[in-house]
Structure formats: structure tokens, C-alpha cells
């Protein structure tokens, strides 16, 4: 990995975490409402995967802020969305759980656990149909791997040999329920065994995630069909702002934080790429500034006009002329 990329990965993680802390703060201040799911602790996964899969389409969940940023959507557009403003990426209509931007091949932002997986399958079908080789990535949690939509998707993607990367963010919990209490084993890649190859990766190591997802994308490009990547990770906060996170012990949390992806990558930058503390701090400051600007932007941005209520139920006109 070249230095620029390594720096970028670090930068995106730091910026992502800064974004999340800012969102948390402004949620507590009442500027943001609804369900806010923070990705703190999972930055390596979100950033590594998005950067590696830059060319393909991505379908994700409600815990998608950092992915949207790593995808190239501006912090301003994302923060403004959380603030419910017109300048938000979904014009204030979607909020935190529904960030969409087809110009960045980023499709949500789905708040139905597993609900976006059949959509990703369909999009992969479209890409294969179009001869587009980069394929599609679907990101989902361990909790999603128990639902019908997930299994149907594995089966269909395999039967039709679709270019689809299943990326399981296994943080071991679905809200307060530990995965091993509701599934017969810990690693959910096992569920994909009958259908496709799987790669297991440490989700707290951004370089490893980047490499695993890159490898998986090459596999897709070869036309062999779908592939599964499972990354073990850990969220530092409660499930959403309304979850007290009381089901995990202090010890469990400490173990988890000892694997911190940002600290780890910082070390890599220092030890492997010879960056000094000053250079790293510069990156951190830049990231924080970007987020501060995003917050100011979001705070000052306009509310949508009341007429926005009735807009976008349907397309204008709605009818496609046949050539």
C-alpha cells in the first residue's frame, strides 16, 4: 500500500470518528433527532471497505455516516441531512438512516435490517446485465444474517453467479442480543459456505480490511459470482443514542477498545511509513476542521420549505418515452 493511500485511510477514519462525535454532541443538544446509530469503533471497516470498493455500487444500513463520507459524499451534505436541512444529501427527508447518493453509487441508508440485501442482488443483476464489471457490495450486520432476506440473497446471488460482495460487519451484537444467543455459531460466514467462498478479516485493522475487500472485488471482476467477507469488529457506543449499552461489561468494552483501529493505524503510519507525530496531527486537525465546518454549515442551512412535504412522492411527469 502506498503512503498516500495509508494516509487517506487514516484521515478518513479520523474524520469519520470526528463526524460521529459531532453528531452525538448535536443529538444531545437537540439539533439531530430520530435514531442515530454511531459507527465509532468500526471505522476501519467502513473506511477500508469503501476505499477498496471505490468503483462499485454500495448498499448499506442505517449505520452508514462514515461510509457515506468515505464514499465521497461531503461531510456538509451528510451533517445537513442529520440536521434535517434542505442542503442534506436527502434534502432532510431521509435523516441519519437514509443517506442516498447515486452520483457516488451509494444507495443507503436502509433501516430495515437485511432489507437492502435483495436490492443489492438486483443491482448486481443489472451490472452483470450491463457488462459492468466492478460489481456491488452489500454491507450488513451480524443481526441481519438471521433474516430471510439475507439467505434468499445468498442463494440467488450464487445461482445467478452475480458480482456481489457480501460484507458482514460482525460486531457480535444486534442491539442488546449477542449473536451467539440467536445463531448456532459465532462467525456468520459459515452461513455462506454452501454458496460462495469467504474471506475472514480483522475488522479493526483498516489495512487488512482494505486488502480483503480489494481481493474480493478482484474475484467479482473475474465473473466467478458472489463472495463473502466477514470482519469482526466492535462498536464503542450503544446501538443507537437511545440504547444505554448496559449489556456489555466494562471489561468487554476495554478489550474491545484495546483494538482501536485508529490507534493501530497511527502506529502503522509512524512505524511503517515513517510519519512523525506532527504530520499526523496535521491530518487530524484538518479532519476536525472539516467536521467543524460541516456542523456550522448544517446549523446555518435552511429548513426545507413546507411544499417539500408533497414533493418526490412520484417523479415529475413519471412517464418514460419509448425511443
Amino acid at each position, binding site marked *: 500500500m502506498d503512503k498516500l493511500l495509508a494516509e487517506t485511510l487514516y484521515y478518513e477514519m479520523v474524520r469519520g470518528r470526528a463526524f460521529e462525535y459531532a453528531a452525538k454532541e448535536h443529538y444531545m443538544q437537540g439539533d439531530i433527532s430520530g435514531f442515530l446509530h454511531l459507527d465509532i469503533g468500526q471505522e476501519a471497516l467502513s473506511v477500508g471497505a469503501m476505499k477498496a470498493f471505490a468503483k462499485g455500487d454500495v448498499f448499506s444500513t442505517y449505520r452508514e455516516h462514515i461510509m457515506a463520507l468515505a464514499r465521497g459524499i461531503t461531510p456538509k451534505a451528510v451533517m445537513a441531512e442529520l440536521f434535517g436541512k434542505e442542503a442534506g444529501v436527502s434534502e432532510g*427527508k*431521509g435523516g441519519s438512516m437514509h443517506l*442516498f447518493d*447515486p452520483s457516488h453509487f451509494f*444507495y443507503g441508508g436502509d433501516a430495515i435490517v437485511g432489507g437492502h440485501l*435483495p436490492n443489492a442482488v*438486483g443491482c448486481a443483476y*443489472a451490472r452483470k446485465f450491463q457488462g459492468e464489471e466492478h460489481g456491488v457490495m452489500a454491507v450488513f450486520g451480524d443481526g441481519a444474517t438471521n433474516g430471510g432476506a439475507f439467505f434468499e440473497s445468498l442463494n440467488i446471488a450464487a445461482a445467478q453467479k452475480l458480482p456481489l460482495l457480501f460484507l458482514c460487519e460482525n460486531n457480535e451484537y444486534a442491539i442488546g442480543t449477542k449473536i451467539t444467543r440467536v445463531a448456532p455459531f459465532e462467525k456468520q460466514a459459515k452461513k455462506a459456505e454452501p454458496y460462495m467462498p469467504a474471506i475472514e478479516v480483522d475488522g479493526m485493522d483498516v489495512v487488512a480490511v482494505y486488502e480483503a475487500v480489494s481481493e474480493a472485488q478482484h474475484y467479482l471482476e473475474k465473473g466467478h459470482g458472489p463472495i463473502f467477507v466477514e470482519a469482526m469488529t466492535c462498536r464503542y457506543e450503544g446501538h443507537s443514542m437511545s440504547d444505554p449499552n448496559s449489556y456489555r461489561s466494562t471489561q468487554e468494552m476495554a478489550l474491545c477498545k484495546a483494538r482501536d483501529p485508529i490507534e493501530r493505524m497511527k502506529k502503522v503510519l509512524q512505524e511503517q511509513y515513517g510519519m512523525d507525530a506532527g504530520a499526523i496531527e496535521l491530518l487530524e486537525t484538518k479532519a476536525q476542521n472539516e467536521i467543524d465546518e460541516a456542523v456550522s454549515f448544517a446549523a446555518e442551512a435552511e429548513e426545507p420549505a413546507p411544499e417539500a412535504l408533497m414533493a418526490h412522492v412520484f417523479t415529475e411527469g413519471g412517464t*418514460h418515452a*419509448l425511443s
Partner: protein
Amino acid sequence: MLYREALNKALDETMAVDDTIVVLGEDVGRYGGSYRVTEGLYAKYGEKRLIDTPIAELSIVGNAVGMAIGGLRPVAEIMTANFALLAFDQIINHMSKYHYMSAGKITLPMVVRFPQGVSKQLAAQHSESYEQMLSAVPGLKVLAASDVNYAYHALKHAVMSDDPFVFIEHELLYNKKGEVDLKTPLDPFKARIVKEGSDVTIVSYLKMVDDVMAAVPKIEEALGCSCEVVDLCSLNPVDYDTLKASIEKTSRLVMVEEEHKTGGYGAQIVSWAAEKMFYTLDAAPLRIAGADVPIPYNRTLELLSIPTPDSIAEQIIDWGRRNDV
């Protein structure tokens, strides 16, 4: 031409000119569709565009949503309305909402088609109607094809539109005969005056339109009145203008539907009329609908569970006598 042939023709003609249109569903390809609506299309367009899916309705609709996001124009067939329940999450939480939630960034040019209703002794898990549920979902356009010409034009419109459509067919209509008028354009959102009349507006849709028409001579004779029969065609949006004009003429409204009466689709029409046309109505409106029971297998019971030409005539005549029609 048969109703199913008209649907087939609509698919064929649109697929011929736009090669991003794909059809997916159980047995829609090689088999030609369980009601033969897609017959011949597999041979013509191949398996890339006529996609035989596994029995996984959630995925059929969910994949169609994803195909539309990816730039295709999918037409998904669900074999029977009851199975569409398995796809309600995708229809309601995804198909109907992505355009709005993304403030128009995502557009879903797609159609979900299925037959519904009481056919002949298919029993409770194969005989239901879900227009009341689906017409209540903002973001979906819901059409119900009662005749051959409408089926052709409306399906073509739905396939060519950039909005998500639910296109409802009826199991007993597939072999209905009729003409397709290729020359006269048809607005699929306009209600159809099936028969003009001056004294009673009878509103209906889908298969019940034929049953109403079969009942009308008896009704007109018994009550000495003239019935206007309106086929709604589009269940959402509703062509309230046509309804209004008709009720202004007749001052009386009867709503006939096959669904269970409680919570059935017709409640929306009658409640609209009560709210907006109250002072125009000369008589209490009448709603004729199915019984509030799961559909039984036995034929006698089955026919008792839904309106028939006889029961429609009987109920309207009785109502007419009680309400000075």
C-alpha cells in the same frame, strides 16, 4: 384478443423497443407464466430478460427494486396476490419509499403485477384481494385491469413510467375476450364509464365490473331506474372528477367490490363521497362487498362469501326500494 394476450402484447411491445425492460417471477420464463401472460417472451428475449426466479417473493420484489436502481426497468410477477404478502416489506418499506426518502435521487421505474381474487375453490390462501392495503400506500400507483383494452394500454403505461406501479389482475379475467383499440390513446388514471345512466352511480373495478353489468338489467327493470356503471381503473390515484360528475348526475352511489367488507377498498370511495358529496347524495350510499370470512373451499360457501350478479341485483333492488330510487 384475450385479456392475458393483451397483457402479453403490452409486455412484448415495450420489451421490443426498450431492452432495459426485464420480466422476473416464478415460472415466467420457460414455462410462459402460470396464467400464460408471458408466453412466448422467453423464446423471443432470452433468459437474461425473462428471469425465472426461485420461490422467494421478498426477493422478487426486492431484486426488482435493485434492478431499477441499477438502471433496468423490471416487471415483477407474483403468481397470486396471497404470496405478495411475503413481499410487503419490499413493496411498502422500499419500493414505495426510496424515491421520497432520497428526495428524488433514486427513481424506481418498476411494476409489480399479480392476479388476485376468488377464482374457483382455491380456498383461503389463494383467493384474496389486497388492493385495499396497497392503495393505502403513498408512493405506489395502483391500477386494476377489468378489461382487455385497459389491460393493454394500462400495462404499457406502467412499464413505460418512471414510477413504481402495482398492477392488479384477476384470476377469472385471463380468458376474457375483447378488442384492443390501438388507435385511441387511453389515460390509465381515468375512470371508465362502462354504461351511462341517470339514477344510480354504481362504482366498481376489476372482475366485479362484469358482475355489476350482469346485474344491471335486472336492477333497472325492478326499480325502473337507469344505472351508470363506473369502472375505477386506477385505484390510486382515484379519478374523483369522473365520480363527482357521475354522482352529480345521479345523486346516488353504490360501491361494489369483491373484498371482505370490513376495511375493504370501497370504504375509501364511500367515505370520500360522504365527505365531499354529502349534500349531493339523495340516498344513503350502499356498499356491497365480500363477507368478513376467510374464503372457504366449498363452492356454495365460496359463492356466498363474495358478491355475485344475483346478490348484487338483490341488494341494490332492496336498497333502491328502501331509498325511493
